[in-house]
Every structure is written in C-alpha cells, then in structure tokens.
C-alpha cells in the first residue's frame, strides 16, 4: 500500500516492528527510536541485532538527528535509519548524505520533488555517511 508520508530508499523488505524508546531498549529489540537528545553511541553494542533505528525530529531546525545518523553509520550500522517527524522535503539531500535511508514525514511527499532533490548535486565537497567521493578525491584522478 502506497504511503505518501514514507520515503524509503532501501530495496529490502520494510521492518515493521514498532520502535521502542532508547530508555526502554532491551537486548534483542530490533527497532529503536532515538530522541534528539539521545546518545546514538548507546546503541553501538546492539547494532548487530537492530534492523531499524528511527531518529526523531521534533522540529526540523533541530539538526541533532544528522549527527546521530552519521555516528551510527560510522559505527558500521547497515540497517535502516529512518528520520521521523517534522521533516521538510528540501532536507532530503542532507538526510541521505548523513546516512538516513528512509524518511517518515508529517507532510506527504511529492515524488517529482523528491526525485529532483535527490538528483540535484552531481558532486559533493566533503565525505559523509553515504559513501559519495568528495571532490578532492576526484581531482587527484
């Protein structure tokens, strides 16, 4: 069923389990939710068990979630990192570069704008969590 509020950039089957709050997390839980002030590194011992980590954005201007996502990717997490909450479509480029591969927004997504946004920049200046080479890596070539 199409969900116009969920954008997912992964091919695998969606892991639907409800995300438990970090404070309630127990060994074996497969989906966790991080609040803006939560320390993403608290999940590092559990990354092998987790399928999905939801990172909450209570206000789109509060950019702590970008650090949380990137930290999780740096620690080796390959499951789904989903941005949840007050998110604007124009943040998609940043979200993807920071390591998110899914977004559930309060507002519906316009697929045409999503496509344009994700394809906008052929080049990036710095390394981030998405594996894209920074321009300086291309220049040496």
């Amino acid at each position, binding site marked *: 069923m199409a969900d116009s509020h969920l954008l997912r950039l992964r091919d695998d089957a969606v892991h639907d389990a409800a995300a438990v709050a970090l404070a309630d997390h127990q060994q074996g839980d497969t989906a966790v939710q991080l609040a803006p002030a939560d320390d993403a590194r608290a999940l590092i011992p559990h990354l092998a068990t987790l399928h999905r980590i939801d990172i909450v954005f209570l206000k*789109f*201007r509060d950019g702590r979630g970008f650090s949380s996502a990137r930290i999780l990717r740096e620690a080796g997490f390959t499951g789904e990192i989903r941005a949840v909450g007050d998110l604007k479509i*124009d943040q998609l*480029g940043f979200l993807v570069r920071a390591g998110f591969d899914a977004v559930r927004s309060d507002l519906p997504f*316009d697929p045409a*704008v999503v496509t344009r946004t994700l394809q906008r*920049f052929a080049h990036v*200046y710095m390394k981030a969590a998405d594996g894209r080479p920074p*321009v300086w890596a291309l220049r040496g070539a």
Partner: protein
Amino acid sequence: MYKYDEYDQAIVDARVEEFRDQVQRRLNNEISEDAFKPLRLMNGLYLQLHAYMLRVAIPYGTLSARQMRMLAHIARRYDRGYAHFTTRQNLQYNWMKLEETPDLLADLASVEMHAFQTSGNCIRNISSDQFAGAAADEIADPRPYAELLRQWSTLHPEFSFLPRKFKIAVTGSDTDRAAIQLHDIGLQLIRNDAGEIGMKVLVGGGMGRTPLLAHVIRDYLPMADYLSYMEAILRVYNRHGRRDNIYKARIKILVNDLGPAEFAAQVEAEWAQMKPLGLDAPAAELARIVAQFAPPALDADAPADIDLSDAGFANWVAVNTHPHKVPGHAIVTISLKAPGEIPGDASADQMDLIADLAEQYAGDEIRVTHAQNLVLPHVRRADLFTLWQALVGAGLATANLDRASDIIACPGLDYCTLANARSIPIAQKLAVKLAPQEADLGELKIKISGCINACGHHHAGHIGILGVDRKGDENYQLLLGGSGAEDASLAKILGPGFDEDGIVVAVEKVVDCYKALRSDPAERLLDTYRRVGAAPFKEAVYG
C-alpha cells in the same frame, strides 16, 4: 586567487537551480513560509524593513576586478545602484525582490560567486586578514586554508541545522587583522619546531548578548588533521549546543558552560573517533589550493622613493598605505568612510572604478576588510600618485584608516528588522565632528551597533556604541576599551545611555578626556583608558 574548476562550478550552478526551484515552489504556495524561510536564509536572503536583503559571499574577503564589475552590474540591474560592504567581508544589497533572486544568483555564478550560507544556522563565510599575501608579518597566506574550509563547509549535511550561526576566521600572523578571538572558531597559522605549518585553534569567542573571548583548545594542529578536527568541533557543538534559547545557542556558551578544558577534552575524544574515517583532504589538495594563491609577479627592484610634495597625497600615503613584503610596493586601503557618507556603502560607479584600478594597479585583486573598507593589495609605489588622483575624483581618497572618522556602523534601524536604533546617522555625525582633529587623536576605532546582535562589533570598539530601545525611543549606550586585534578585550559600558544628540556630545567628552590624560600624543585612547581606568572618563562624561 582561487579559480573554480568544473566541480566548483557544478556545485554553484546546481545550487542556483535548486534555489530557483525552491522559490518557484514557494511562489506557488507548494512550500510554507515556515519551511521556506531557512531555505532562503541558507542562500543569504533576509526580509528586512523595506525589502529583501541579499548577502553575497566574498570568501575571505577576496575578489577580482571581473567579480567587482558583476557586483556593480547587479547593483544597477536588480537594486538601486549601490551596495554595502559588511563587517564579515561580505556584500549586501538592500532592495532585492524574491522573484528576481534566482536570476541574480545565476549572474553571480557566472563569475564564480554565490550567496551560500551567508545566513542561517550553518557555517558562514570564512573570514581572513585583508592584507593576506601582501603583509610582511605573515607566516603564510591564510587564504588557502580558508578556501579548503569553505569547500568543506559548503552544504555539509551534518552541520546545516546547527543550534545557531557559526563563524570562522583564519589569520596568518601574530598581528590579528581578522579578530580571531571574537569568532566561534579562530585559527592562526603557526610553525612547529620542525618549521611545519599548522594551526593554533581557538574556540568560543563572539559578541552579541554574551560577549566572550575565545580559548585556545589546541596549541598546534597539524594540517593533516585540519578537516577532521573541525568536524569534531562542529559535531560536539551540533550535539550539545543549547537549542532552548536563541540567546544561549552559540558555541561560546557551550565552551563557557563546560569550561574550555572539558570542551577541549570532548573535542579530542570525538576527534579520536573521526580521524580514522578519512575525512581529511590529502596534502595534494591543499597544495593545489595553495598554488592558486601564489603571489603575483612583483618587481622587487621597483623604486621605493616617491614624490611626496603634494601634502594631501603625502598624508594619504602615510595614513592609508601599509608596507608590502615586496620592496617598492604598498598595500592601499580605500576608505568607504568619507565623513558624512554612509559607512561601507559604495555606488555602482565607484565599484566599477575600483575594478579598473585593481586591474591596472593592483594585480587584479581587491579585498574587503571587516571594517567595511576595501584594499588594493599589490600596488607599486610608483603608481600611488596616479591611483590616488583617480580615487580623489570618485570620493574614495579619504585618508582616515583606523582613525576617528573610520567608523564601523551596522545598517541599523534604517534598514534592519532586528535593530532597535539607527546607527548610520550617529556614525555620520561623529565622523563629521571628529574628522578635523582625527590626525591628532591617532588610532581610534569607533564601532556602532543598532542592536545587541552586534553586527557593528561595538564590543570590540575602543569606543563602542550600542543602540537600544528605551520606551519606544532610540537610545545609545556608550562603551569603552574594546579591541578586536591581538590585544583583544571587550568594551565596558560607561554609564547610563543617551539620546541621539547626547551620544555625540558624550563621545566628544571622552575624546577631550583622553587628550587631557594621555601620557603623550602617541598613546592611543584605548591605551590611555587601559592605563587610567574608566573613572576619569565616567567623570568627564557624566560630571
């Protein structure tokens, strides 16, 4: 100076198209104003009292004649024939239309310019020393290091929604012409014992509601660790900076609350995690950028002696030129502070003239200073007279650099929605009043802000003036003893505030008190104040 390659140009062009798309969607009501506002701020577009204002980035204050001509063209085509150079080495246009801004940005992109991140809660223009590459006292030109940082900070995905704005300054000498102690991050190029260039890293300076001087958190940072270390600082700030109170959201508050030692420890711990990730650009990339800042070919045998028999010319040479590291050359400051004029404003005609002069006499390079003046960095002394004559004709030859009429004033309530009081008229009145005696007063830095956001840098003024709202009327606080140089200090309020006439009288009394108390005419007002304290000045002003 730095020339874009295909990658730089591609990024700027894509950003222009992205903003064009965002503007169109906003005009079609497909995005709310609440969602759109941070997007336009990230492109430097403010809504001010009368119109939109666009802040164009001038990276580390450097531009070419071609770029200056485009800025003049834009002033004519899209604005009202003038522009304003700012205290962060940028340029502001005051009469912008949202619907025309995408075309304007495309024009800028055609000459390798942009308005990226000149507003918003992101990393702003990296500022630097206006004499970079020409000053005799620098270890190395700081601008390549600023350029590397500019690229790294452009559209950084983790740091585009910070608690608040983030300002970085880089300098290459002990003499601090970039006010690094008053920035969120201040960087000074230094050499280690092996002679290798690295950075001294300072964090947590700033003006505004809670002025603070920065702390050194790393005495020596090797170039190989430059970008990863900056990432660590920004990540600690992004994660732990306050987001509950806009006036407590800068990194200086975090550094102050944790204490510099604990803050530094958190940065080092984060950096230990980030260093292995390969975030640092290779040495070859820095070398590539450094090579673009190779000094121009200047004739070291150019004659140093010049004819100073014209008194006006001689005075201008003495006041507005600095020695260049290459003999027979000079660094020229073009004052945008003719007494009675609007500080930092230039007409399109003046901008075109300066472009011509830069091409002809200054190696095609112009600098913007954070005191709202312009610099021609590489002028042969033999050309100074002809240059001066051209400047005289355009009203650009005021010989007042760092003197009493060289006043920094923010746009203030005449333009800005944030302001409590007008600052430009105060600057105009003071400049006219003090100019006749300014040669006798020597170095005297007067800085005026129209509100607590301190864009006029009043905390760093020898004499600082802060406009406030007092029961609906404009009122002005008088501060003394600030400095943004290597002897950095924060100005202190002297006593109760004044109305617009009273503040001019008060400043005159401060000046008279200085003249009465100075140990000799060479002692600066700042130094007299530091020596005798506030009490005599308070007595002189408040009686």
